[in-house]
């Protein structure tokens, strides 16, 4: 599902973000990308959904060589991948419902289909009762659930979560992690970047640890 083969990322002035990263993630796996802040976790995820280009090496996602994707093909490619961020990235001037529906609407999904998927997703994440609330009226945990709903509504094959619990308290973190686990249980491949070793230990999932720009552990 996701394959990194000797991938390196070097920014300007020889600043190395990632070096010689090789791993493979199978369909249906739940994998943690672990490492300190600035270790290169975000860069790694960004390269997987082609927001960044690797300097060396090849990346294959969903059987496609990411580097070979043409500019025109990127939107279609991204529709198969859901992404969730630490800072939620919600549109502050839209309600919860609008934020989630936005994800389908911008890809030209018919209105009736949008309504159906919206109801299904909001019910699953237990957000229906707050669908008219604006992001600033929601707690951090709820906002992250909205971000997950926005990713999930498109039935992605892969869900990439970049420190999704980074801004949350312990209880909300646990709730979000449980949701991600459940999503994975239903068949979606989940890759979650985190700096919290304790969380990884508790979850007993595969972990890729990055240290000093290199992959130092895969277990």
């Amino acid at each position, binding site marked *: 599902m996701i394959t990194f083969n000797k991938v390196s990322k070097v920014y300007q002035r020889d600043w190395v973000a990632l070096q010689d990263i090789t791993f493979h993630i199978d369909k249906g796996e739940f994998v943690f990308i672990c490492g300190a802040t600035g270790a290169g976790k975000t860069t790694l995820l960004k390269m997987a959904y082609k927001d960044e280009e690797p300097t060396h090496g090849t990346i294959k996602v969903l059987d496609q060589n990411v580097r070979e994707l043409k500019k025109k093909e990127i*939107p*279609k490619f991204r*529709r198969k991948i859901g992404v969730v961020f630490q800072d939620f990235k919600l549109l502050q001037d839209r309600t919860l419902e609008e934020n989630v529906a936005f994800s389908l609407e911008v890809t030209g999904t018919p209105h009736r289909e949008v309504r159906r998927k919206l109801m299904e997703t909001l019910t699953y994440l237990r957000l229906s009762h707050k669908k008219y609330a604006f992001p600033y009226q929601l707690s951090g945990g709820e906002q992250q659930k909205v971000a997950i709903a926005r990713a999930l509504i498109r039935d992605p094959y892969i869900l990439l979560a970049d420190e999704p619990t980074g801004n949350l308290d312990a209880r909300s973190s646990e709730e979000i992690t449980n949701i991600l686990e459940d999503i994975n249980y239903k068949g979606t491949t989940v890759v979650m970047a985190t700096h919290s070793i304790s969380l990884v230990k508790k979850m007993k999932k595969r972990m890729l640890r990055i240290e000093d720009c290199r992959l130092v552990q895969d277990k």
Partner: protein
Amino acid sequence: MALRIGIREGMRTITRHGSLFFLSLLVAAISLFLLALFSLVTVNLYEAIRILDEKIEIIAFLDRRADVDALKGNIQKIKGVEQVHYISSEQALTDLRNELQDTEGILDVFEENPLPASFRIELEGSFRNARGLKDISSKIMLLEGIEETLYGGELVDQLKKITNGIVMFDFGLLAIIIFSVIFVIFQTIKLTIFARSTEIEIMKLVGASNGFIAIPFTFEGIVQGLLGGFIAFLLTVITYRVATFFFDNIYFPQWWFLLGTILGGMFFGIIGSSIAIRRFLK
């Protein structure tokens, strides 16, 4: 479908970011108004030059025995002559009386009409200069029955030099104003797009195509251009009305100005938004 949603998104940002939209609309309207105002000055300058140019002509006075029809025919044959108007001595006297108005009484000292008959000779455009006037005038002087000719001579060339200078200056200024207007509108659109970079980022993230992302912004650009152009036109009309208190005969082709400001506004809006959005879509 995509167009409908795109337009709806555009409408939504207009209504929800009202102050931002209003600000850029104001900038567009004022910029277009300045452009329209300057165009109005330019149009009038050209009109004045055109009228002035048409007034460059030769007056030929006839002696009393001249054969008017034969002379008129001969003058018309000269290269560069466009039209010849005959003004009889009676007509000349009537014209003079009209010009003198209240003081026409001074003409009573003459027992008979002292004014000679004349031809007013209009020239083709390329001959309306000192050399053309001199050449044609000397040819007319050779004809029998012509007593004297009158024309501007060197003065005409000097006048042309001045008007050419003014036109060049005007063009330069117009180019600078157009450039500034494009720059200001573009910068304003860029600011409004920058304020919504999160929205663009999310759209890209969830797989919206670049074309789709551009629709709301282009729509906004068009609406802004249309409204801005219309406001600019109204401001120009008001300025024109005020100016008519101070100046006579201002030339103001209203429909062209309406069309120009609206189309100009739309053009700047579309170009500005597509350039600005392109930077974010890289």
